[in-house]
């Protein structure tokens, strides 16, 4: 009886702790690109925080908009002042889930192609997005990569006529994060 209870309890404990895993990063890399004939604009933010829950497949991202670094200082200023209005709307977030969780075995090393759906919030606008992503499991770490496009119009980011040709209407976003189990 005593042994049975012990085994029961131990197995319960083990399964629980193994399945309730959060993969976390505090320096996720998120970059974006705007390509036009006139000029290319790109910026990177290396301080995104993100959590992927391997139990229920939730995926969360959060970053400070003014953390994007540009090659040109004036672009950075305009990005914050005129386009993203980071003083008013300091954060951008994503709250979603892995749509096809069954494809991923978080206990087994490998690369898994998944679809992530959820709400992308920025510039005070929330939109539902569905993006393809690659999740790579390697021991206790995880990396997630995706590239997708967003329309400026969808997030009420207005581009004035004079610089219409300098800024693409569709911006390519790139996510490159390395997670650790916690």
């Amino acid at each position: 009886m005593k042994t049975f209870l012990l085994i029961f309890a131990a197995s319960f404990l083990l399964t629980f702790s193994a399945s309730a895993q959060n993969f976390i990063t505090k320096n996720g890399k998120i970059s974006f690109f705007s390509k036009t004939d006139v000029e290319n604009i790109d910026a990177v933010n290396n301080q995104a925080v993100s959590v992927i829950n391997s139990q229920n497949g939730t995926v969360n991202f959060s970053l400070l908009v003014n953390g994007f670094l540009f090659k040109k200082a004036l672009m950075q200023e305009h990005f914050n002042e005129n386009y993203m209005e980071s003083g008013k709307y300091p954060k951008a977030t994503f709250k979603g889930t892995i749509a096809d969780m069954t494809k991923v075995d978080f206990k087994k090393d490998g690369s898994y192609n998944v679809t992530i759906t959820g709400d992308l919030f920025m510039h005070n606008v929330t939109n539902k997005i569905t993006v393809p992503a690659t999740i790579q499991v390697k021991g206790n770490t995880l990396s997630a990569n995706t590239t997708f496009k967003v329309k400026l119009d969808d997030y009420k980011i207005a581009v004035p006529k004079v610089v219409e040709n300098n800024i693409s209407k569709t911006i390519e976003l790139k996510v490159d994060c390395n997670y650790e189990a916690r």
Partner: protein
Amino acid sequence: MKLIKIWCLFLLMGIAYEAGAQDTTDIMNLLENEMTSTKDMTFYTTATFKTTRLVNGHSVENVAKGVLDVKISHRFGNLNEGFYELFGLDKATMRMGFDYGITRYLMVGVGRSTYQKTYDAFFKLKILRQSKGKRKMPITLSYVPTIAYRSLKWEDPTIKNYATSRLFYTHQLIIGRKFSEGTSLQLMPTFIHQNLVTAATDPNDFFAIGIGGRQKLSKRISINAEYYYQLKDYKLPGTQNSLSIGFDIETGGHVFQLHFTNSIGMNERTFIADTKGRWDKGDILFGFNISRVFTIGKNH
């Protein structure tokens, strides 16, 4: 004994369960708090003004590191000259200037004005930066010393003239604060020294206190004003206080500044200590500054 063991197990299970029940959003909140925790990050205020000049004088703003700012400024004639001079547009004086950001807190600049054929050079050093978070600072403080060289021909070439007689020195402190996204104000105590003056009774040293500010009208347009009050005993007789009102219009890499002012000069000594026009008499000049930035060096 057995009871204690079972009790211990349940306790362990309880702890494990609690850890498992911790919701992702909770962890997210925890992380976000860590990220935005103002304890270990300092957020510096940016874009207190759109460019490094308010109208005639300096704003508290610097050009960014590695950025060259080419400034072309014009002042036309007096509006009260009437239609014959097309309200002053037939006349123009200009200043050509080149400003460069050496570091985030130090910029240098040179310029040449047609008015009195003056060369000027300055540097602007940010001593304090307005910030919140870990390091809190309510104001930005800059120091701007300027040297100007007036290259007009000697009034009397028959006497012995010294090159130093052509020199003017200005020391200016700028105390600025961005009060909100749209509103910024600054104070500019200024000291000017002139090596040679016309009359023996004229002072060589001038003191003035400037006040200036901007209010954004839209994301890309702001209204600016600038006023320099000259201290009574430290001014040239017959000179007026400089008052300017203008608009900043920003389009991509350009900033256009259109303004009305009673000063014709565009370096500190001329517009602070040598303004003769009077607003109430209609001695108002229309003018503009165009600023175009070029990224030369590396930003980061």
